[in-house]
């Protein structure tokens, strides 16, 4: 729990305060100093238009992390709702919702996201939509699974007998028990969102220039692979470290939850 909190705070701080730590304007063009090496005014060098790479990375954190957070939360809300409806709604509802979930799962997410984002036209909104539509299924699966096992628990039966409304039962008896599993799924989905946002950005379907975003920065840097390879090292390394940190937190969390609860 503590590690998730620390990570969330750290990433949140990076997303919120990152831009104010930037030494330069991320969009200020400085042609004489284009493709500069690290050092001096530009700690990590400059890109093809002479823009400060470090400043762009820090501003990009807001986009990459902020969007990933929004997308993973939309998925969390939608998936939990669908999963709980399946677990609580009886066999027919369960069957129908799970077939829909399977259909969404049966398709490679990135391909679906590329098609959706591409067809809707490249914009931040279609990016959010595309990645949310393809990112709720794991939450639904997990909340349905835990929900089904809760249905036969004593306190849930008692709540039903007591005449508590289904919504209140979901809120008070299912959600608290779902929390831990959902947090584990959430860390995984946060990492996935970061990879997919920059992946779509790299393909040209994501956040549009000149907005600094890690994937788009990679796309820009690709052209200068021969002359200025460092340019593509920075955003890649940033993505790698961020995703690695989130994944490791998720693993630690899973391990600590796998230990038996206190009786």
């Amino acid at each position, binding site marked *: 729990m503590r590690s998730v909190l620390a990570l969330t705070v750290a990433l949140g701080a990076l997303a919120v305060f990152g831009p104010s730590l930037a030494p330069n304007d991320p969009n200020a063009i400085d042609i004489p100093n284009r493709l500069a090496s690290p050092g001096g005014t530009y700690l990590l060098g400059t890109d093809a238009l002479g823009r400060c790479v470090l400043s762009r990375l820090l501003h990009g954190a807001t986009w990459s992390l902020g969007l990933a957070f929004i997308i993973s939360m939309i998925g969390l809300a939608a998936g939990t709702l669908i999963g709980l409806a399946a677990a609580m709604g009886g066999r027919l509802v369960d069957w129908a919702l799970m077939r829909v979930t399977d259909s969404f799962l049966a398709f490679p997410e990135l391909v679906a996201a590329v098609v959706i984002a*591409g067809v*809707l036209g490249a914009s931040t909104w279609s990016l959010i939509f595309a990645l949310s539509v393809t990112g709720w299924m794991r939450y639904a699966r997990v909340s349905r699974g835990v929900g089904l096992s809760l249905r036969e628990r004593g306190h849930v039966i008692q709540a039903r007998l007591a005449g508590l409304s289904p919504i209140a039962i979901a809120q008070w008896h299912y959600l608290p028990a779902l929390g831990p599993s959902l947090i584990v799924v959430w860390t995984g989905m946060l990492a996935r969102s970061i990879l997919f946002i920059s992946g779509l950005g790299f393909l040209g379907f994501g956040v549009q220039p000149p907005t600094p975003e890690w994937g788009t920065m990679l796309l820009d840097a690709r052209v200068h692979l021969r002359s200025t390879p460092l340019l593509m090292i920075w955003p890649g390394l940033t993505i*790698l470290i961020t995703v*690695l940190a989130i994944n490791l937190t998720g693993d630690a969390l899973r391990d600590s939850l796998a230990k038996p609860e206190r009786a």
Partner: protein
Amino acid sequence: MIVLVEVLLRSIVVLTLTALVTFTLLWHAPGDPAMAIALARYDAVVPPDVLEQIRAQTGLDAGYWPAFWHWIKPLLTGDFGNSSVSGRPIWPDLRDAFGLTLPLALAGLAIGLLISVPLAIYASRQPGSWIDRGAVAVASIGAAMPAYWLGLLLILLFSVRLGWLPAMGAQGPTHLILPALTLGLGVAASLTRILRSGLLEAREAPFLPALARRGVPANRIGRDHVAPHAAIPVVTVLGLELAFLLEGAVIVEVIFARPGLGTFLIDAIFARDFPKVQAVVIVTALLFVTVNLLIDLVYRVIDPRTRLSGA
């Protein structure tokens, strides 16, 4: 038998839903589809009567369901229709593109298996040893590594710095090496993790000490009892890996300018060539449904628990 029917039925439901969702998405895509076709075809704004002609040709004028039927009916007989941009039939181009993606995916899978299987077996023999920790660390980094970045790094090393391998195109077998490596390393990362934990779990199975006490040799326990246990998650994972391979192929093909299925899709989207987009989606869905169906059946053969409950 009942199981087979249910699985088949489920596949049909998934395919139908995919087709419907795709069509609905394209139907509601921003802009006039007829205008998009006209622009793509003639590269100029065209008079209204030409637009009408295009609408009639493509079934667009009749409304949602007739237009859907206009697409689905030939599809059921294997006809993917014509590109709205070039007017050429889609199938031959799609087949050629698939012919380039398939070797890439297979080579990626082979590289992934070649790395992960020995690594996971070695690592799980001595949990906690330096080789085990190293394997876990490499796998964790691999899982967090964006494929597009890995591809660029490989180009930087092998093409730019060392000059050993070509970075672009698909002319010969050497062109396959770097893309396959990019894909394979990603596969290896996730497979190593899953295989390792599967093997560790199987090694901790409660009946193994009893076998050892009975005097069954260690290598026979490994072969006859541990391996089959670890195989169950692997079969599941292979299904997921297929998704990974296809997603990876899209990105890898773009990085290495390889004219496969991924490039085909991206080009079609940028050209707003919707019939091509639909074709790729349907082929992908068909591929997935078939593989999932096979996995489902294999699963029932190797895992006695599902055999019982599936009856």
